[in-house]
C-alpha cells in the first residue's frame, strides 16, 4: 500500500454494479476514474447517464449533464458521504492516518496482492455502511466492495488505463 503514496496521477476505467433489495436486477454504471495526488479525485460516469463527481480537498461537486445541474457541498456537512469518499481517496493516496480517522482498518496480503477491510467507527456511518472492502496490487486498486446495513451492496471494478 505504501506504493500508492508514490503515485502522482493515475487514470482508470470502472464498472460499478449495485445490488439493491428493492430492485430485481443490478444497476450498472461505467466510466472513468482519475486521481491526482494528493487530494483530487474525479469520477466521470458515462453510462447509463453522464454524471461527474469532482472531489477536491473538502469540496464535492456533482454535475449532471442532463438538466445542467451542478451542486457543490462541503464534506464536513455530510459526514456519511465524507467517510465514504475518503475510503477511496485516502486509499489511493496511501494515507492510512486519514483512513483510521473514519474506519477501523485491517490490512491483509502482501504488496503484490493486498486487501483492506474498513469498518466505520462513526455510529451514524455504521447505520448506513457496514463494511468496505478494497483490494489492489502494488500501486493500484482493483476492486471496491461496499456492504450496506440493509443488505444492499455495490461492487466497483477498476482497470488501470496507462495510455
Amino acid at each position, binding site marked *: 500500500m505504501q506504493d500508492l503514496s508514490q503515485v502522482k496521477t493515475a487514470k482508470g476505467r470502472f464498472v460499478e454494479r*449495485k445490488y439493491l*433489495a*428493492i430492485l*430485481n436486477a443490478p444497476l450498472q454504471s461505467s466510466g472513468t476514474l482519475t486521481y491526482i495526488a494528493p487530494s483530487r479525485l474525479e469520477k466521470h460516469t458515462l453510462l447509463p447517464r453522464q454524471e461527474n463527481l469532482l472531489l477536491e480537498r473538502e469540496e464535492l461537486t456533482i454535475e449532471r449533464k442532463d438538466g445542467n445541474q451542478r451542486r457543490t457541498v462541503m464534506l464536513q456537512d455530510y459526514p*456519511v458521504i465524507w467517510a*465514504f469518499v475518503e475510503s477511496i481517496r485516502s486509499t489511493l493516496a496511501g494515507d492510512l492516518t486519514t483512513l483510521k480517522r473514519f474506519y477501523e482498518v485491517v490490512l491483509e496480503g502482501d504488496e503484490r496482492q493486498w486487501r483492506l477491510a474498513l469498518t466505520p467507527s462513526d455510529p451514524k456511518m455504521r447505520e*448506513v455502511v457496514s463494511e468496505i472492502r478494497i483490494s489492489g496490487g502494488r500501486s493500484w486498486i482493483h476492486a471496491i466492495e461496499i456492504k450496506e446495513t440493509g443488505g444492499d451492496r455495490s461492487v466497483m471494478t477498476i482497470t488501470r488505463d496507462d495510455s
Partner: protein
Amino acid sequence: MTPAQRWRIAAWLAFVAACVVVIARTAFTTDISAFLPRSPTPEQQVLVEQLREGVVSRLVLIGIEGASPETLAQASKRLAAQLRKHDDFLSVDNGDGTGSAADRDFLWRNRYLLSSAVTPERFSAGGLRERLEEQLRLLGSPAGMLVRRILPADPSAELLHILERFEGQSKPATRDGVWFSRDGARALLVAQTRAAGYDIDAQERALALVRSAFGHTGASDAKLLLAGPGVFSVGTRAAIRGDATRFSLIATALIAALLLAIYRSPRVLALGLLPVASGAAAGIAAVSLGFGSVHGITLGFGVTLIGEGVDYAIYLFTQSAPGISPHRALDRIWPTLRLGVLTSICGFSAMLFSGFAGLAQLGLFSITGLLVAVAVTRWILPAFLPPGFDAPALAALVPGAMAAVRRAPALRYPLLLAVVLAAVVLAVQRGPLWSDDLASLSPVSRSDQLLDQQLRRDIGAPDVRYLVVIHAPDVQAALQASEAIGATLRRASQAGLLEGYESPADFLPSRQAQQNRQRALPAPAKLRANLQLAAQGLPYRREVFEPFLKDAAAAKDMPLVERSTLQGTRLALRLDTLLVKKDHGWVAMLALRGVSDAQNIARAIAAPAGTRAVLLDFKRESDRLYQSYRSEVLRNSLLGALAIALLLFASLRSPRRMFDVLAPLVAAVLVTAGVLVLSGLRLSIFHLVGLLLVVAVGSNYSLFFDRQTPSGEGRERTIVSLLFASVTTMIGFGVLAFSKVPVLHDIGLTVGIGAILALAFAAILSRRDDARR
C-alpha cells in the same frame, strides 16, 4: 429677606419637591425605541415591530473559541444541554440534531398535505413513470444511499420536494457533531430567548444564564463570544448608564473645582450649582410627564446642562461687586441674559419638534432645564448671596484677559482665511459629507457590529433584508395569499430574480390547498393500477411500493395540518415568526433570499382580493427613515437658526449689531464643521444638532460681547465671566466627547469645539475694542 422673597423660596422648594416626586416614579429606558419614528408608516411599523419583538430581536449568537476543536465541541454540547433546561430560551441550536427529529417526523407524516407538487398529473400513470425513472437515476448516484430507505414509501419524492424548499439556506459546517465556523476555530450556537428583544431586563437575565452555564462547561481556557440584538441592548444600557453617571460626576467635579478655585467659598459653590440642580430635576420631571419615560441618553445629556446652566450663576457672581447689590447687578445683565436664554431655547426647540423620540426628549429636557435654571438665578439666588459679595480672585485674571481681548482683532484675517478654508472643505466634500447609515445612530460599537456580522456569516443566520408583508382579514386568507404570492416568487426565481423564499405556507398550507392535495391523490385502487402501469419494464420489485400505497390512501382523509399539529417542532417557532395575529387581522411574511432584482419582484407581486401585500426592503426603509430624520433635523435646525436671527433682530433692532452677534456664530459653525470633516468624520444627525447648539450657546457669548456697558470695569467683569462661562460649557460638553455612545459623543465633541471657537471669534470680531484702540 423680604416677604416676597420668602414666598418665592417657598414656591421654589415646593416645585423642586414636586419634581422629585415625579422623578421617583419615572421609568428609565435605554431601548432602541428612542431611535425609531414616533409616527411610522405601515412599512416602518413592520420594521419597528421586527426590531422590537420579531424573531430577529430574540436571537443570541454564541461563539466559543480559543481551545482545541474537541474541547470546543464538548463545551458546545454541555452549554446547549444546560440552556435547554431553562424556560428562558425557546430554542438552543448547536447542530447536534436535537429537535430536528420532531421536525422530520412532522414533515414525513404530512408530506402529501405539505408538498406543493401534489397534483392529479403527478399521480397518473405517466406522472408516476417519470418519478420512478428519476428515482432509478438517483439510486445509481452517490445520493442513492440516502434516498433508498424512504423510496418504498415515497416514490414520488414528496419529502425531497419539501426539503428542497429549505435548501439554499446556508448552514454552518459541522465538526464532532456540532456547528463550527468553516475554519474550525469556533464552535457556534444559536439561542432564541422567550422574551422579546425590547425587554432588556429579561435579555440581561438570559445572557447571565448563558455566561454562568458556560462557566460550568469546564472549558476554562476557551472564550465565550456573544452577539445579537439582545446582547447589544443590554450592553448599550450598561454603556449609557455608565457614561451618564461617570460623565455627570466628572463634569460636576471639574466645574465644582473650578468654581471653588475662583470663588474660594463652599457657599458660593453650592449656590452656583443650585440653578443647575433645580433645572436638571425639572427637566427630568418634564420628560417623564411628557413622554411617559425617560431615556438614558437624556440623562447623559444632563451633563451639558451643568455646563450651560452654571453660566447663569457665573454671570451673576461676576457682576456683583461690593458697591452693587446682587439685585442691581442682575437687573443690569438681565436683558442680555434673557435674550441669551431665549436664543438657546430657540436652538433646543429644533430638537423638541423632531420626530425622533430621543432628540425630542433631549429638547424638552434642555428647554425646561434652562428655563428653570435661569428663573432660579433671577429670583432665588440673589436672596442667598451675602451682601457685599465680591469675587476677589477674578480681579487677578482681568489684565491678562483684557490684553488677550485687545489683541484678538489682529487675528481677523487668519479667521477669515480659516472660514474660507472650512467652507471650501465642506463644499468639496459635499458627496460623502453626511453619513447615510442608520447604524451611525446606533449606540452599538463598531467592533461589536463586526463580531455580530462575523458570527452571522459563520452560522448562516439569514440576513433578512427583503420581506413580502401580507395583511389579511383572517388566517386562511393570509395563507392563501402567501401561496398565491409564493407561486409568483417561484416563477421569479426561475427567471433569476431571486434565489428562494420562505413562506408560512411551507409549514402550514391553507385548508383549501391541503384539501386540493387530498383530492389530487387517486383512490387506492386507481393509484395501484397507475403504479403498476408506471413500473412496467423498470427493475423495481413488485411489492416494494406497498408502504406508499398505504400512506397515500391514509393521506386522502387524514386530519388537515393546523397550527397545533406543529406543536413540539422547531418549525412551529419559525411559523410564529412568519404568521402573526394583529388587532385587525393577520400578517404573513415571506422572507426572500438572494434577491437580485427587487424592482421587478415588487412589480410582479399582486395580492389576492381583500388582502394587501408589499415588498419591504429593510435596508432601504431604514436608510429612508434615517434620511427623513436628517432632512427633518436639518429643516428644524434651519428654522431654529432663523428663529434665533429673528429674535436677535427684534431685540437688537439694528442690522449692524445683529451682524456683530451673528458673524462669530456662523464662523464658529463653519470652522467646527470643517474641523470635524477634516478629521475624517462623516457628519451625522447628532453633529448637525451639535452645530445648532453651538449657535444657541455661542449666542450668549457674542451677545455679552456686544452688550453696551456703561463702565470699563463692568466690561472687564463681563469678559472674565464669559471666559469662565465658556470654560464650564466646554467642560460640560467636552467631557461627553469621551463617551462611547454616539449621540453623546457627537454632540459633546461638536459643542465642545464650537463653544470655545464662538467665544474666541466673538472676541476677534468685536468692534467696540477697535473704536477704543
